[in-house]
């Protein structure tokens, strides 16, 4: 009876698989229908107002002045948004770097056996993470605005800055000496890279020797010393790399002579190759000793997705955007030309100096509204308040993550390291921190994501990030929807990039289990 029933399928309306698919499709249709309905309503409403959503404004004149960034007086609105994006990335990068350093320091202070360090760390964390980041940013803005004004000359009674000529802090922000790349930088780097090749081999052989014979290792110290020596040599001897100028220009000419069709074929081949490679690897990962494992819907979906992706790429290259190939050819040529300019004995307007790096002291431009001169490294008030707000807020979370990570490494690990005769610092370096790092990495990545997204609060203090610039743009032309889509796409790309990098690091750190 039971056996007989096993083979007869249930009626269609009671078949679990059929019902599941029906429900899914029904819900999908309802969701898509609702979205379509909303879009339709919006379309009607826009049409009633005689308004059309398009991206033409990006080509139009900007009439915007940015507070700071790569281009403060952009020609087009597109260029302005682009500058805003660069500003966002600038503050996100700086914020991630500094908040990580500060967070690790505070986290270690909280782990310290010193009572005072411990308490200072706790108060830092408990205070800063319980005040909204926007309030902190605006508070910093108010604090900096309440500082003294920038007075003109150093000779005057109200001399500016805590250390005149080196550090200025005022209500306009703060300015410190700036180190920048000078003429010889690229020649210096080229020579240094060249000298690093033998050092790398020496390091390898020293390590191999240590592994063979045991004993104290001097590989690290020797390599570091040699590297410093190479840097010193390169600092003075960099003009000998000037000969690279003509080969680089030759590459530029070669690059520019590539026909567009060839570039299109190459791009298509890359896309197809990537898809084929992905599918091949994927199938390999599903292969077991007993043969290919049974593939689920999801697996097929992934493979189809890869193939469709390649096809879309080909379509883009050949039909939708043929200009892409010539753009790549031109930009490649530009890049090699630009690279060639960095070498040689001549630089426009004279002979090339051989100093790789140079520095300048901050100064004040006098006038009716005195301001910082561009010679120093200047943090404007908008940048400074956003930066301090984000860094202190994020650091308080990173400190907790670091503390949790170290505490989560089992106590047995410390004891085992001690039993092996490792010193405290060795145990920390080789046993505790590598394991803590693995625990810390995913939440740390989350904090980096949060910091990047929180840079959008720039609008509250007038820092010209992508949101602030975008808002200025849509206030002028009403293209709210278009600007919103640009914002969303930009932040999505940033988030995906950060999570991709963090996932890669995670995968490398993960314990390999059998």
């Amino acid at each position, binding site marked *: 009876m039971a056996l007989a029933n096993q083979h007869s399928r249930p009626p269609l309306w009671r078949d679990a698989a059929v019902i599941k698919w029906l429900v*899914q499709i029904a819900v*999908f249709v309802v969701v898509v229908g609702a979205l379509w309905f909303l879009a339709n*309503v919006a379309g009607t409403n826009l049409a009633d107002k005689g308004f059309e959503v398009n991206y033409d404004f990006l080509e139009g004149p900007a009439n915007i002045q940015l507070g700071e960034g790569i281009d403060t007086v952009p020609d087009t609105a597109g260029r302005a948004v682009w500058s805003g994006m660069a500003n966002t990335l600038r503050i996100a990068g700086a914020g991630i770097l500094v908040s990580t350093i500060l967070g690790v320091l505070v986290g270690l202070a909280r782990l310290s*056996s*010193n009572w005072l360090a411990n308490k200072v760390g706790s108060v830092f964390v408990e205070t800063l993470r319980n005040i909204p980041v926007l309030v902190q940013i605006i508070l910093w803005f*108010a604090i900096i605005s309440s500082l003294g004004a920038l007075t003109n000359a150093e000779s005057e009674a109200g001399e500016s800055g805590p250390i005149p000529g080196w550090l200025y802090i005022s209500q306009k922000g703060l300015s410190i000496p700036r180190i920048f790349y000078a003429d010889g930088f690229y020649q210096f780097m080229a020579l240094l890279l060249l000298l690093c090749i033998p050092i790398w081999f020496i390091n390898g052989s020293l390590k191999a020797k240590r592994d063979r014979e045991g004993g104290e290792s001097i590989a690290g110290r020797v390599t570091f010393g040699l590297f410093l020596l190479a840097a010193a040599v390169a600092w003075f001897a960099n003009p000998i790399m000037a000969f690279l100028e003509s080969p680089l220009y030759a590459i530029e000419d070669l690059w520019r002579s590539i026909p567009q069709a060839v570039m299109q074929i190459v791009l298509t081949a890359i896309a197809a190759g990537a898809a084929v490679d992905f599918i091949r690897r994927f199938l390999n990962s599903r292969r077991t000793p007993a043969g290919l494992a049974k593939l689920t819907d999801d697996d097929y979906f992934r493979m189809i997705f890869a193939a469709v992706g390649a096809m879309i790429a080909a379509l883009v290259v050949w039909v939708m955007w043929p200009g892409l190939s010539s753009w790549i050819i031109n930009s490649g040529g530009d890049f090699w030309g630009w690279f060639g300019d960095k070498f040689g004995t001549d630089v426009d307007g004279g002979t090339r100096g051989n100093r790789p790096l140079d520095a300048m002291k901050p100064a004040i431009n006098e006038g009716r509204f005195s301001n910082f001169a561009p010679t120093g490294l200047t943090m404007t008030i908008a940048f400074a308040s956003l930066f301090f707000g984000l860094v202190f807020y994020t650091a308080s979370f990173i400190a907790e*993550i670091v*503390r949790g990570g170290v505490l989560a490494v089992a106590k047995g690990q410390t004891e085992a390291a001690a039993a092996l005769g490792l010193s405290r610092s060795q145990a920390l370096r080789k046993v505790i921190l590598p394991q803590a790092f693995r625990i810390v990495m995913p939440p740390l990545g989350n904090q980096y994501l949060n910091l990047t997204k929180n840079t959008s609060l720039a609008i*509250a203090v007038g820092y010209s990030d992508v949101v602030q610039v975008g808002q200025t743009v849509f206030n002028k032309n009403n293209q709210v929807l278009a600007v919103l889509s640009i914002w969303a796409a930009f932040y999505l790309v940033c988030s995906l990039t950060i999570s991709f990098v963090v996932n890669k690091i995670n995968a490398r750190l993960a314990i390999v289990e059998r």
Partner: protein
Amino acid sequence: MSDAIALPPETVEALATANQAPDKPIKDPVQWAKENLFSTVGNTIQTILFTALLVFILRWLLGLIVSEERDWTAVTTNIRLLFTYNYPGSQYGRIWFSFGAMLTTAMFTVVAFGLRPMVALRKILINTAGLGAFLVLVSVLAPTESFPLRILLAGVVLVAIGAGLLVAIPNAHERMVSFWQMLVGLAVICLIATWLVPWGNNTFANGEVTQIAGTIKASTKNWLTLMVGVTLASFFAARALLAVVPDRVLKGIMLVWWLLGPAFLIFLVLRDPSFDWGYVLSVDIPIALGFGLGGAALLYFLSTPGNESLARTAGLVVLGIGVLTFVLAFRGDLSMLQKVRLSILALGFAALLAPTFSGESRVRMRFALGWLGFILITHWLITGINTPSTLDIAAPPFLGGFMIPLTLGYYVMLASFPMGILMALARTSDMPLFRVMATTYIEGVRGVPLIVILFFFDNLLNLFLPSGMSISKLGGIFVGYTLFSAAYMAENIRGGLQAVRRGQFEASDALGLTTLQRTVFIILPQALRVSIPNLVGQAIATFKETSLVAIIGAFDLLNVARNSIPNQPAFLGHALAPLLFISAVYWVVAYSMSRASRSLETKLGVGAR
């Protein structure tokens, strides 16, 4: 998997406290300093370094607070604006009533859940002396023109009291202070602060600030005293009640009140809708009762074992009718109250759910009563929202200042909770289409900053509504924030779902439960229990991030402090004092929320499995 590794702060705390030794008796201060501050060379260097850092930072912070340019009257005269914005002063009793209700809720919760912490007398005394020492430090470091003698004196007195009692009471570290003793002590301190300390009071009228010496204003004083009385009375009343009623019942009542209390306070107390009672009695109440009682009877019948296929058929039919009413309404063929249509739809879904709850009559009765409660509450809310307010407010909306973080945070969490559960289930389900949709939504929303979403809903929500419909600014913000919060909620709940062990699924399958029964009765309760710490963390984050509505232009605490007060003629440009003040307000609320939740979690053992 990455979520499983991400340690919530509460876990970190638990790990840290697990390593600490239990309370030790008092030690010689010199001995203590030797052990904790100067045990090794490195330790000594750290002590010196951190002392320097502390002195530097403290001096700078004190400079911010006591500077001659800081006008704290900007805060004291604008307390009402900061907390309640434009709420009419004549109706202020309502605010106090709500505040009293919140205090009562807190006291009843403390009693019902048995959260009456005992604190060692020693700890209180040491903290008193520590506070005194801090005040002395402040008086020494504060960069003021004249030496702050009063602060120094207060500090010295506190140190004397703390240290003196510590020495005078022989077994201070064994004595415990119970919760009610602390409560009475706090009440006495509050009363002294209200009635005896000469704070002075400021009024702001016609651009002029008048300062009156003496204690705070009589109207405030009376209300504050009443609040102290309410707190004490409700604590003892709750204790007396606990002796009569089993704590299980009290806990249940408290949970329901936590969910509904704020809505009640906002709609019936703060907003005071002007109900047209004739209409309410003749239309609203009959509809609600009809749907509630009729639906309950129907569902009780449909959930009888054996009626499964009937329930499904009936559910589909009712659902079809519900959809039809909407379709007809859009064509303009059928005029009907919106809540009737929504109720028909809800009844259809409930009928489809009926087989899940089929079983003993007790279970079925609970299901039917759940429906009745749902209908009564939703109808009350819908009626309450749609009735105009009687309050005459100078510049609507009636919500502003500190009320925005509180109410917006509460409603956003409440509304995003069911959405979050649904999306977490969809994302972990084995149905590919659901998974793809949920993943797209969650990752898409999480990849975009909140401010972008708020801009969208503030500027464009009305664009997506059919002509004739519109939504207020706060309404738009609420919708956008809820949709945003739901994605994060879904991720938190998904973490809990992944912590439920495989065996639980298999065991419920072996018992022959349907997928829905398995999810509702077996998986979700366990998953939600695990994700409580993360959800509390999200609640705190939601509360803090409501400050973003200031950028959109709602007059919340931040916007009042940053824009309204510095634009008053008497306080032109004085933004720093109000900003420091609201930072303290946010800090107090967020910090006490996290402390309370931590103690609740350890008490109930949630979050751990």
